[in-house]
């Protein structure tokens, strides 16, 4: 149990794929054999592609009556032993919220792909946005933690989807592939390797499925039908799943562990990427998803102009890469956060740094152009010593 290498189901080689398709390929490679979904632009292609791929590997697909049903079916399948996935976008994500909290509370591994579009509400259904950055973390009631990854290319959505499954299984938590229409509908080359590293659940018969002595640890996860007589409930429960809704200490201990198992392992989960940070740039761009591509282009142009600009790219959004952000920002004069919302991640960074952070928001349903960042930095940011 734990991490091991397996042979992928897709022959190794180069493939020219759409982001949504690569996501589905990554899922199949990671061992996903259950998908429940509901159509929504711009995420439907993930579902359509996985239906095609499941034919070759005996996966189970069901198109549910709505997104509440999709996530519910995934949780049922997960406890029956599946590595389940769904794909959706803003409106569907909103419908899933109650059961996302249920999955967090019951420590059910799930992968939810959110190909973000421009909200709120039905907004601009066909256009990119990054308006769900906080919703995936805070949208369900109560205190809990999830993991969210943010790819910027077709290759990366493939790789990150595999990682999302491994993290979901390793931490027994819902993991989001928090992408956007820009990446979802992009077409690029993807390299598929022969071997894939996957994480297999430790079933540990007889062990308590909701407790471990290790502080903030992740208990093993048994499955239905193995004679374990499992008690799974979203209500406050003891190590064996018995409801203890009137016992303060049980609730406190449970919620603390659910939160702690992610927060305390942030270093194992967090993943970032940086460009031109070695010389301690004046301006630090912090970006993610499709917008990070524009930010990198902008940084290159500005560097050519002699301006000291660097980029920190957030590949993990939740848990938030706090340490890396603080360290990277230390020597910079200005921190600029371009994003396709009204400053959602900018505020998160502001919370960490004891100073003003400059938001470069865009909510017009278009991907951000490098020129916008270039002009903004030239005018607004202090770039000369």
């Amino acid at each position, binding site marked *: 149990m734990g991490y091991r290498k397996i042979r992928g189901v897709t022959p190794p080689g180069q493939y020219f794929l759409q982001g949504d398709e690569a996501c589905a390929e990554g899922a199949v490679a990671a061992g996903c054999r259950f998908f429940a979904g509901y159509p929504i632009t711009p995420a439907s292609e993930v579902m359509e592609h996985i239906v095609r791929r499941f034919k070759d590997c005996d996966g189970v697909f069901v198109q549910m*009556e709505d997104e509440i049903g999709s996530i*519910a*079916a995934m949780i049922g399948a997960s406890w029956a*032993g599946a590595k389940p996935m769904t794909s959706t976008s803003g409106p569907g994500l909103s419908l899933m919220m109650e059961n996302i909290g249920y999955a967090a509370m019951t420590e059910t591994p799930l992968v939810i792909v959110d190909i973000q579009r421009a909200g709120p509400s039905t907004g601009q259904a066909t256009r990119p946005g990054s308006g769900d950055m906080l919703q995936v973390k805070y949208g369900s009631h109560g205190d809990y933690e999830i993991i969210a990854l943010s790819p910027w290319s077709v290759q990366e959505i493939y790789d990150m989807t595999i990682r999302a499954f491994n993290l979901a299984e390793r931490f027994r938590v819902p993991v989001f592939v928090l992408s956007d229409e820009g990446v979802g509908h992009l077409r690029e080359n993807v390299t598929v390797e022969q071997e894939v590293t996957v994480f297999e659940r430790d079933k540990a018969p007889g062990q308590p499925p909701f407790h471990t002595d290790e502080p903030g640890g992740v208990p093993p996860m048994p499955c239905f*039908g193995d004679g374990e007589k499992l008690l799974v409930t979203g209500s406050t429960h003891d190590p064996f799943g018995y409801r203890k809704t009137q016992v303060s200490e049980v609730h406190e201990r449970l919620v603390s562990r659910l939160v702690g198992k992610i927060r305390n392992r942030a270093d194992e989960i967090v993943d970032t990427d940086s460009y031109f940070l070695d010389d301690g740039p004046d301006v630090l761009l912090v970006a993610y998803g499709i917008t990070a591509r524009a930010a990198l282009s902008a940084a290159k142009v500005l560097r050519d102009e002699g301006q000291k600009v660097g980029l920190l790219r957030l590949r993990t959004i939740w848990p938030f890469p706090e340490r890396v952000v603080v360290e990277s920002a230390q020597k910079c004069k200005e921190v600029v956060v371009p994003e396709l919302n009204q400053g959602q991640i900018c505020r998160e960074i502001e919370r960490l740094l004891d100073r003003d952070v400059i938001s470069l928001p865009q909510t017009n349903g278009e991907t951000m152009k490098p020129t916008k960042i270039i002009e903004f930095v030239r005018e607004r940011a202090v770039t000369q010593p």
Partner: protein
Amino acid sequence: MSKHLYKYLRTEVFPTPFCSGCGHGILMGAILRAIDELGYDMDGMLFVSGIGCGAWIPSPHFAADTLHVTHGRPVAFATGAKLFKPSLKVVVISGDGDIASIGGNHLIHAARRDIDLTIICANNGIYGMTGGQVAASTPLGMRTSTTPDGNRERPFDLCKLVEAAGGTYVSRYSVHQVKPLIRSIQRGLEHTGLSFIEVLSPCPTQFGRRNVSGTAFEMLQTLKEDCVSRQKAETMGSEELKYKIVTGEFVTS
């Protein structure tokens, strides 16, 4: 032979949290007797329930795999478990509010799919757990905490609903008809495809105290007077049937 049923229970959690005289307890016994008579191994069974008093029938009482989920969604959770692991015998047991109101859409679609689940709806005609509010199955005229002057909305006929949506075993019994109820649960469990069993289950606490002054037994008596068998109903006029509840098997295909 109640004691013979104790092997199917987590006896350490008993007595149940149900109020004295609650019909859900009678239904719990009927389900266990049906399983016992069929000789099923509980280790191959999964019981899925939502939120409400009815949802507590299996969780945590049954010594089997149980999945106690969000309000209204047990049928959708069950769908995922069954599709991924068809060897599991999956049974949904939950209240009328849970299965037929907030979860009504999942019920309709499970019936349309004719997925191999047994759904047992513990219908007390009210939201018991939350303090007795009107439900989609509250009979006309009944007083609840949100219809103090009597319910003016027509209740759902759940069996007709499931039948129309494509369920392939559909029945309705009251807990006072305990023997036919046990037989029907057995048929539902043995049926391949979607089986739906609506069980009229009195709630003395929230329904009874506002509508019938009497004991749990008197509620059962009232229910007995209100129920007519399908065969009898066929000989009755629509006016006569207006305030009657028809019981029996409606679909056995």
